[in-house]
């Protein structure tokens, strides 16, 4: 069965005088998870709500395949869209058990078929033993999985997830996320994952879109976004960066045209003893599998991530060079 693309075409949304989403066009392709990344107040949740029909568009249109869902003055109600939603607080119905929650959207099937369908979803998400439990009796991860099952069970045309993992215990998060997104991916429908965590976007999405102050800065496949950011903002949105103006770049490191700025990822700073560009190691600490160095180079602080084996200790002087694939020069003077 061919699934439809869910797309926003030049949509805008204003509250009073503030424009929260401005002229955003974004296609959510079936079978792909698109991460919508941005800081708080970037307009991510609002864009999701526009897709869901929870809010009307002030300009632009929302389409599902060949069907217009929202236009200015016309909003198809959420219950007529057949789009699944997953919330940060899971929004399980507190008065219904896990199984009844999943059955909620299956009314059209009739009771027996709905029960069977709900059970199979609970089994898929490893919740069979918890079917009779009420939401407050479930752990955070279990609630999350019930919410996923509930949203996917009616076979929606698309699924929208609003920071679905940020309420979870960090230790559990990646486990729950993998299980959840596996089910989402298997559904083969357009999926939107709103998040403020760049690592989550890169690790779990196929496609990444970056929103800032209501504007879509850039979108593309996750790896392309990481390796070919079109602006310093995009680069910074996808992970920590070192930013320097042309005149701040220590001589001999790299040529940066005047007025431009240099943006380097921490892992783009390589230790090379023979390099004439010298830096002082101020601090050297483990950071996950890598070692994080705080470097002082002619009064400039730089952060580098280097392999743990052979990493220099604090107080050493080292030579560094930049990995061209992870160093970007942008003409704009604005950060």
């Amino acid at each position, binding site marked *: 069965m061919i699934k439809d693309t869910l797309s926003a075409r030049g949509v805008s949304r204003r509250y009073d005088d503030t424009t929260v989403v401005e002229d955003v066009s974004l296609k959510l392709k079936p079978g792909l998870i698109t991460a919508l990344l941005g800081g708080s107040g970037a307009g991510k949740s609002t864009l999701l709500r526009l897709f869901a029909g*929870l809010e009307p568009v002030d300009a632009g249109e929302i389409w599902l395949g060949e069907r217009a869902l929202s236009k200015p003055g016309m909003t198809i109600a959420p*219950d*007529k869209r057949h789009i699944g939603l997953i919330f940060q607080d899971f929004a399980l119905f*507190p008065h219904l058990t896990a199984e009844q929650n999943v059955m909620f959207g299956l009314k059209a099937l009739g009771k027996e078929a709905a029960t069977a369908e709900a059970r199979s979803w609970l089994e898929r998400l490893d919740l069979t033993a918890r079917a009779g439990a009420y939401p407050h009796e479930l752990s955070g991860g279990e609630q999350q999985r019930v919410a996923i099952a509930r949203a996917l069970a009616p076979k929606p045309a698309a699924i929208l997830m609003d920071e679905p993992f940020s309420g979870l215990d960090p230790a559990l998060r990646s486990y729950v996320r993998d299980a959840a997104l596996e089910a989402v991916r298997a559904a083969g429908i357009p999926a939107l994952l709103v998040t403020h965590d760049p690592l989550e976007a890169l690790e779990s999405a196929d496609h990444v879109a970056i929103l800032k102050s209501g504007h879509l800065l850039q979108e593309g496949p996750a790896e392309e976004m990481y390796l070919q950011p079109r602006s310093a903002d995009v680069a910074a949105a996808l992970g920590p960066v070192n930013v320097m103006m042309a005149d701040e770049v220590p001589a001999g490191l790299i040529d940066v045209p005047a007025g431009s700025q240099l943006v380097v990822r921490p892992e783009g700073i390589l230790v090379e003893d023979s390099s004439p560009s010298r830096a002082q190691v101020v601090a050297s600490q483990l950071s996950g599998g890598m070692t994080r160095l705080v470097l002082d180079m002619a009064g400039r602080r730089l952060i580098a991530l280097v392999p743990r084996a052979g990493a220099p200790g604090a107080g050493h002087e080292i030579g560094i060079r930049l990995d061209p694939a992870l160093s970007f020069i942008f003409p704009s003077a604005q950060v």
Partner: protein
Amino acid sequence: MAGPALPRSLARWLTPGPGDGPAALAGAVIAVPVVSVLLAAIFLGGGEAWDHIRSTLLVPYLGGTVGTLVLATIFMLMFAVPAAWLVTMHEFPGRAAFEWLLILPLAAPGYVLAYAWGDLMGVGGPLQTALRDMTGWAARDYWFPSMRSLPGLAFVLASGLYPYVYLTARAGFVSQSVCALEAARSLGASPLSSFWNVALPAARPAIAAGLALSLMESAADYGAAEFLGVPTLTFGIVRAWKSFGEPAAAARLAVVLLVLVVGLVMAERWSRGRAGSQQSSTRWRTVSRTRLGGVAGWLAAAFCLTGFTIGFVLPVSRLVWRALETQESIAPVGEALKNTLILAGAGAAFAMVLALVIALAGRGKGPGAAFARLTASSAYAIPGAVLALGALVVLGGFGLTLTGLVPVAALAWVYASRFTAAGAEPMVAALDRAPASLGQAAQSLGATPWRRAKEVDLPIALSGASAGALILFVESLKELPATLMLRPFNWDTLAVRAHAYATDERLAAAALPALLITAAGLIPVILLSWRLSHARPGEAA
């Protein structure tokens, strides 16, 4: 989480703090009236009066109370729940005003509403007069709904007490995650179906709590039932004591009433069931109200206006009209006002002392405090007539008569017994909100438990006390049956005076004291609605 909590609270029970003795004593002071009613019912025997009451009056009394409660439930649910839903989730003309206007009927006690409605709907009242003028009929030519009936009593009580249901239903709707409603919509539920299948079940425990509260108040009513001539248990208790002079028979009736009240409490508990009503994780999003345009919006406004008009505008304006019609009896009201202030002030002061003792005992968490809080909140549900009866039994046991200061002390005791919970709970809540580390910091700075209570806990508790004290005062002032039974000879309070005039069919004279009581009742209600419009969970992101 439940694992470690249990042993800790157990440990706490085994090690009472220095405040627990006084707190347990406060609990005992609160519990004595109701306990003595129970003992009197068991051990005093009923006497001849009881045989008479049991064979001829018990069924009408019980039927009157149960029938009133059932009808009042229907009236309140039919209005208050839809009104709360409209006001929380929709935008329509006047919504912001209705949000707090709908609470105002709480200000007037049931007996005051009964006087006004009895007058409005009576044969000589404005409605029937207008009907006769328009049609040329005589009073015997037509049927007109009578307030002096069981449905009339239920209507009057419901019109004044529905705000409890409205308030808790509203809180139940507001505290739901809006996301749950949006999730329901995304799963294909229409707006009406999401209300019926998601919002209403989740708010059900809150609605049940408000309903239980308003039904307890209804069961405790004496004045409206007596005025409208509907026999109820509370009416019977007062009468058994007053007319038959039989405290023991009254005590047996009181036990029947208590069983009913306990049944209400248990039904409310049971309605909570195992299903939760609150989200386990909370993420609030601005409630985006659905705009009701055109006719729908005006219909919503008209619906809310109807409830407000019935519960407040019509009865109060009728009383104002009656008071202005006559200049009668201003001076006696001055005397009654003074008596009211003395008695309500004494009751509130005594209750606040008890409340403080309870709140400061281990921040309301020690074993003595826990016992006292339990008795206080139980006593809150017990009709004033029953507690007054208990006090009379105790006084009788000690051979004391209602002379000198004895009745003042006895009334203060009964008021405190009934209303201490309203003073203690806000203080305990204030202490709960303060971080536990405050006390630990004081301890680490070498403060003794006594100093800690005085210099740390007391100021914090008092920050939550003023509203509680006000509620205590106003509730004491509105209380009718206990005051009627225990007041010193010739000491009329506003409530007693209003009731005496009203039952004598001198409504013009009853109007002024009734309005004064209502005006006093407005103060905490306005305070409440102010708070409501300034702190809205779920409205601030």
